[in-house]
């Protein structure tokens, strides 16, 4: 396993954080600039590139037809995958998704799924027989930290904009033809923080993540709900810190939602 981060850089980030400063000059609760592009992959039912500072991820959705799960005969399903491509950072490796990527995908998935934004019953084609199965995969194209939020934004926009494939009379997909959209009833977004040198930093970069004692992500909705939480990395948070982060998350995600609404 390759590691290109030097211990001295980490120490510098920690020292700065103790003085409430960040290496890129941001305030502790300041998000990096977000750029959004959509529709680049014509073969996808929806696709989005989100650039968050230097972090860049691409998400795409393919809808397929399958059989329902035995215990949910009238529901389709959605699965989310994440991959840190070796082209995105010197430290990323080829091969099966590691624990980091599995956690990343599952937390992004939960923030959306648990918000009940997607009505799985609407993904049913014929009860007990045929349902839509959506595969949303996002890939890191340049890795500079906070893949949770970048992946969450890219996934949400991709679902928002996705076209549903058209079905023929035998309920088979007609390639490249679409009918209607996949509608979301909520706009859940993750907001991620790390604790460095005892301070809470919003939207960490790669080096800040490597310098962190602990990480916290919270999924919030526009109507005041928490839909997911995840504490990561080996340190701890106090309940006070968690409460403060949740508060910032609600405010910050509201700004992003406004930017998304403009697309």
């Amino acid at each position: 396993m390759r590691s290109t981060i030097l211990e001295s850089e980490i120490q510098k980030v920690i020292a700065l954080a103790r003085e409430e400063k960040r290496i890129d000059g941001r305030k502790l609760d300041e998000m990096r600039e977000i750029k959004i592009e959509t529709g680049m992959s014509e073969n996808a039912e929806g696709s989005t590139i989100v650039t968050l500072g230097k972090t860049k991820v691409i998400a795409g959705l393919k809808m397929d037809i399958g059989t329902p799960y035995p215990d949910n005969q009238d529901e389709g399903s959605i699965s989310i995958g994440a991959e840190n491509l070796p082209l995105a950072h010197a430290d990323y490796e080829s091969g099966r998704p590691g624990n980091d990527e599995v956690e990343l995908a599952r937390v992004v998935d939960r923030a959306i799924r648990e918000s009940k934004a997607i009505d799985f019953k609407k993904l049913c084609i014929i009860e007990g027989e045929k349902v839509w199965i959506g595969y949303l995969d996002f890939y890191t194209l340049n890795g500079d930290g906070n893949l949770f939020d970048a992946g969450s934004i890219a996934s949400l926009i991709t679902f928002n904009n996705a076209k549903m494939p058209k079905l023929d009379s035998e309920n088979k997909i007609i390639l490249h033809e679409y009918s209607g959209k996949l509608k979301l009833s909520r706009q859940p977004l993750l907001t991620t923080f790390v604790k460095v040198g005892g301070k809470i930093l919003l939207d960490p970069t790669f080096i800040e993540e490597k310098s962190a004692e602990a990480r916290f992500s919270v999924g919030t909705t526009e109507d005041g709900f928490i839909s997911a939480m995840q504490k990561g990395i080996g340190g701890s948070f106090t309940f006070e810190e968690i409460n403060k982060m949740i508060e910032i998350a609600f405010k910050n995600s509201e700004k992003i939602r406004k930017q998304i609404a403009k697309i």
Partner: protein
Amino acid sequence: MKNEKKVDYKKDKKRLDGRKMDELRPIKIDVGVIPNADGSAYLEWGQNKVYAAVYGPREALPKHSADPLKAVVKVEYRMTSFSVPQRKRPGPNRRDQEISKVLGEALAKTIFVEQFPNTEIGVYVEVVDSNAGSRVACLTAASCALADAGIPMRDMVSATGIGKAFNELVVDLNKDEEDAPDAVDIPIGILPNSEEIVLLQLDGLLTIKEWEQVSKMGVKSCKNVYEIQKQALKKKFELGDAGKKIVELKEDKTVKKKVKK
């Protein structure tokens, strides 16, 4: 099971299995159950039954995984094929991978890893029966196994699930409650003496107000679990308050232990 829509805990004043809202399922812990391990524990938590074993500090393998500054803590969460209603396929799935990761991260802070450079501490937890809450059961058991192994720790880790079901906030959801239409599941793990959070996840829809209530219930329940852990360790060592011994480790950071190779 998802059809129990008429259940309303607010009205009913008690839960499907008769528990009070803030009542844990029965917990039983036996320490030292796996003779080969350096430390071990068997834990029953309602229907959940889990084994935890600790091996180490021992030589880190493969060698390139060793850290010259500290012990590497490896946690593996697994379930037997018959521990769930529908047979689980062999090999770790994505859920197992994630839980292994968060359990490892929840234990990392409490262990004085810097005392054992170049070694590994292997923590293995195996679920042999389950009914909601197996991850907090495993974290609780693993913490006991580490104490049993004599690994120097800042504090125990005590965990529980808090959540919401049938219109009420409740402690320690069981499977029927997890299947409630408004179910929220929040596994929480803390260092019981400092009340620091080392494990925290949430699935479902919760308001900030509810979260404030949940956090109080979490601390209280985790501390209840801590008492049970201390009793179990006491029972094992018989010769005094083993739980206290663990807490005392916080003061005595100089404890050294021979590393087995």
